[in-house]
């Protein structure tokens, strides 16, 4: 088979560093069932699972590229491209719904003019859905850059987003 044409090739991952990827993969490849730990470690470094790393992971774990791609694409967490500088995970599950999460998130996405998983035009904020953060007794809840926030309302959410986009 001939190589795919240039237009079909995915864009290079920003800050891609092959040597670093080799190091990360090697650090976790010896674990039992190493694939998820390797992919998490890559995403931790690059903000996504770089497509450049997929054949390297396959080689290191004695898997086919298709198998690794299958794993990457199965799990919601693994991103194909790096997120914005800050990541807001908003809970959309039932306990948060019972406290008005649907309207809250619809309002925010509308004001930011992004879709779920999208990043604001200034590249500062990515808004991702979560289905339960275990903060169901202080709903609606979110994780802002990994920090939990509970009993959100529109004003608190807007404030938090404003602060994050400034920083």
């Amino acid at each position, binding site marked *: 088979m001939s190589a795919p044409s240039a237009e079909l090739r995915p864009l290079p991952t920003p800050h891609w560093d092959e040597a670093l990827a080799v190091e990360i993969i090697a650090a976790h490849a010896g674990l*039992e*069932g*190493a*694939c*998820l*730990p390797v*992919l*998490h470690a890559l995403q931790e470094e690059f903000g996504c699972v770089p497509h450049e790393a997929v054949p390297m992971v396959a080689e290191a*774990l004695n898997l086919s590229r298709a*198998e690794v791609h*299958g*794993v990457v694409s*199965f*799990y*919601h*967490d*693994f991103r194909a491209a790096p997120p914005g500088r800050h990541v807001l*995970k908003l809970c959309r*599950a*039932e*306990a*948060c*719904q*019972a*406290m008005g999460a649907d309207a809250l998130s619809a309002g925010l996405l509308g004001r930011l003019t992004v879709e779920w998983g999208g990043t604001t035009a200034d590249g500062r904020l990515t808004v991702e859905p*979560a*289905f*339960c*953060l*275990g*903060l*169901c*007794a*202080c*709903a609606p*809840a979110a*994780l802002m850059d*990994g*920090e*939990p*926030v*509970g*009993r959100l309302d529109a004003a608190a959410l807007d404030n938090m987003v404003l602060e994050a986009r400034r920083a």
Partner: protein
Amino acid sequence: MMRIYLPQDAAALALGAEAVLRALQAEASRRGVVLDVVRTGTRGAVWLEPLLEVETPEGRIGYGPVKAGDVAGLFDAGLPEGGAHALRVGRPEEHPWFAGQTRLTFARCGVVDPVSVADYRAHGGFVGLEKALAMSGEAIVDTVKLSGLRGRGGAGFPTGIKWNTVRLASADRKYVVCNADEGDSGTFADRMLMEGDPFCLIEGMAIAAIAVGATKGFIYTRSEYPHAVRAMRAAIVAARRAGWLGDNVGGSGRAFDMEVRVGAGAYICGEETSLLNSLEGKRGVVRAKPPLPAVEGLFGKPTVVNNVLSFAAVPWIMAHGAEAYAGFGTGRSLGTLAVQIAGNVRRGGLVELPFGLPLRAVIEDWGGGTASGRPFRAVQVGGPLGAYFPEALLDTPMDYEAFARAGGLLGHGGVTVFDDSVDLARQARFAFEFCAGESCGKCTPCRIGAVRGMEVMDRIKAGVQPEKNLAVLDDLLELMTDASLCAMGGLTPIPVGSALKHFPEDFDVAARAAA
């Protein structure tokens, strides 16, 4: 010196515990008071968080919910002596919300320093494991059987029987896997225990390993739980250093060690066979059973797979005896249940209760009714695959069989309350949407059925040929129930069907438009 206990459970952090800590430090240094802050888990009263406690000669005195702005006032009121203040709740264990509970599994949660082995020991920790190390595997399994402990993940399978299957299997290697992939909305007991008393889970898994002859354990938890992951990993390191994990568990010459693995946002990985595939580094696709994981589990080896709360119940059972545990509860649901009160409720949190209390007591007595102050309308028990119950079913006792008879399931004990603003047709549609998004795709009824279900619900909600579409919906529910490979597709009909049965008015668009 003033010793303060302040939770760092994710829910306390979500409600401003860090800001309270900063205010405490600033105010203490302004007043020349030396602070000794112990970070604990939560006692479970999320409605009182952040619940700050100060050590006094009369014991620990709690104040909550504290905001950073309250701190100066607390000092003015004599915080170091446990002085009177509007936020003072007194000794937490004497507060009716706590005093009415039966805290076995969660006895230490919110009380101890979660990463201190010494503190865990001082509160009765590792007594169960010490006893187990002096017993045969068969005797441990018999104790667990006799306690009546059933899997707390939702299926309610007798834990001792599962362990015995693994014990009797012969293999060069066996595993103990903890299912900490707590994805059900309305549940947070696993998270709370892992953050507040991680050694309890370690001890329970170690007892299981000793009983069945396993040498390696995994805790599979969620990426949405970064605080639990950190607490668990720190506790494993501390337990290993103290000799409770490793090549010589508690000086017994037996080997057992464990590690934490983090999922990647797939709800289906809470299904045990999907979890095992994920642990092996594969797509989280469900496996057909048999073979049972107890016979061919992780990497094809005999594997105990239990929920966090099943393992965490075992140290108490070993320490206090099977009969003592079986003395709580009702019928075939013995021991205690960690009930998690969530959603639109005034006093949300975790209460540990013997099985058998009516659902109404949980929502009204502990929960205090809706947070919004609007009338109660529906409650979903058991997560996204649990039934929506109306007011008329609130007298259902919290036990496995009673819930099954009422057309629902207890699941992991999550109770999500909704007020009268809820639209049950919308919730039914969401159940299909969630199933469509989270289906592993292996079986057709779940993969395709969920998508068809969304479409049918959209037509019903739009008032398109409602009778015909309701007939299609009925067919679909029956098919998914009977033909799905696992509980994901097989139980999605529960929330949909219960919403339709108990709240038919929400599905009748013509009537609603006329009203």
